[in-house]
């Protein structure tokens, strides 16, 4: 598990989400990247039942990542992050007196997984309740574990297929003290997906486009 950056790629002007995704695939293949199957990251939102403290409710997010198919990740808003077994969802059903699944809040990103040298690239279509909202690109540089060390290198790589609109160092890393060390589990990656999903959930539906 190396250093990962998840970013949103704007839909090209006059193009649909799918057309933009196809264009990214073509650019990656021109670089020499090889397609290696598919990937999926999803996120369910739970809201606490019986909020008595009067404070704004804190959400619980349960996420799955096809890279780690046997585990799932539970993130409590602004709080701890927990890596659990895959059947954590079953536990959430039992906890429904405390946390209720917010229907219509399910977000997922699906797409193709590419390998280029020591880079892994995942280009995904982000859907909120089955409607396409945008495009996510995840780039992982596997041999390095210190985000600050390889950031310039990753930026150069992303520029080669995303053009000049390359994101800044993800805040999840910027916020970390000194030893910018990506943990073995993918919580840093999932935190970035969660940020992206929250942003897209609030966005208006992209006009006239659907997943398939």
């Amino acid at each position, binding site marked *: 598990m190396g250093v990962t950056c998840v970013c949103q790629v704007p839909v090209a002007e006059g193009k649909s989400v799918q057309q933009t995704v196809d264009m990214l695939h073509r650019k990656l293949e021109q670089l020499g990247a090889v397609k290696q199957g598919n990937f999926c990251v999803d996120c369910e939102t739970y809201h606490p039942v019986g909020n008595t403290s009067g404070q704004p409710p804190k959400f619980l997010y349960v996420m799955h990542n096809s890279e780690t198919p046997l585990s799932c990740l539970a993130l409590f808003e602004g709080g701890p992050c927990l890596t659990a077994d895959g059947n954590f969802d079953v536990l959430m059903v039992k906890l429904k007196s405390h946390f209720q699944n917010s229907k219509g809040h399910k977000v997922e990103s699906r797409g193709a997984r590419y390998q280029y040298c020591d880079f892994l690239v995942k280009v995904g279509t982000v859907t909120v309740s089955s409607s396409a909202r945008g495009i996510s690109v995840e780039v992982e540089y596997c*041999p390095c574990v*210190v985000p600050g060390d390889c950031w310039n*290198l990753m930026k*150069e790589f992303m520029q080669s297929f995303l053009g000049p609109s390359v994101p800044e160092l993800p805040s999840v890393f910027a916020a970390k003290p000194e030893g910018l060390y990506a943990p073995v589990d993918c919580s840093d990656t999932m935190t970035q997906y969660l940020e992206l999903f929250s942003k897209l959930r609030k966005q208006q539906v992209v006009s006239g486009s659907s997943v398939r």
Partner: protein
Amino acid sequence: MADVMNVGVNLEAFSQAINAIQALRSSVTRVFDTLKDGMKNKETLEGREKVFITEFQDNLQAVNRDLNELERLSNLVGRPSESHPLHNSGLLSLDPVQDKTPLYSQLLQAYKWSNKLQYHAGLASSLLNQQSLKRSANQMGASAKRRPKVQPSTLVLPPQYVDDVISRIGRMFPDMSIELFRPNGTSAVLLVTLGKVLKAVVVMRSLFIDRTIVRAFNENIYTEDGKLDIWSKSNYQVFQKVTDHATTALLHYQLPQMPDVVVRSFMTWLRSYIKLFQTPCQRCGRYLQDGLPPTWRDFRTLEAFHDSCRQ
């Protein structure tokens, strides 16, 4: 054949000498004949003795005369020339049954070969002395003999000495940790951890670095049964490349007389990878080329280059 005949033998004197030998032989035979016959019948005992002694003296004088003649001739015969490259074996050419026993031509052939061999061996040895690319045990033994200051054989340094050298080198570089293992007998295996960038397994033979494998910081260093994995290569292309370059460096830094300097030079070079992902190429100024960062480090300046940008 002509030059073989001309070996400095006086043939005239030679044949005379052979005659002289025959003469000597017959005069010696005559001496023994008179002795064998004894005293012949004469009237008086005195007469018999007198005749016998005179005869015996005459014969001995003849032997003496022939012997002197032979000695004189043998000085005339002379000796085969010392300057002949094959010395006495050159006389083999005089063998009349040349066709049946081609000993002489075979000898000449063998002589030519051994001459050539010696010449080429001399050239090779002087060339090898110029290059200090010496890795074999024989060469090291030889160099140790020439320089009695170092240990009799640098291959059998005491483990304690190796430990000391390694720990001294480890203290030189604070961002580099060197752990020493001895999984198989006395030969040391070093696990070098460089910052949070890479881990290198360095297999030693005494103080000589035998081979090295570089892997990512987050890759497995141990096999499933908990032993140090000194064989499998990195999963990442960038570290496969760095491993190749490190192997080149092992061949570059060679100084058989001072193995500790070699280890130190190699570690200094390896340490320049601390900024493997942070340094752009010194030639093209970019970070990536074919998906790889600048993996080459100049042996002298330690500057970073892409493999294809170095010259």
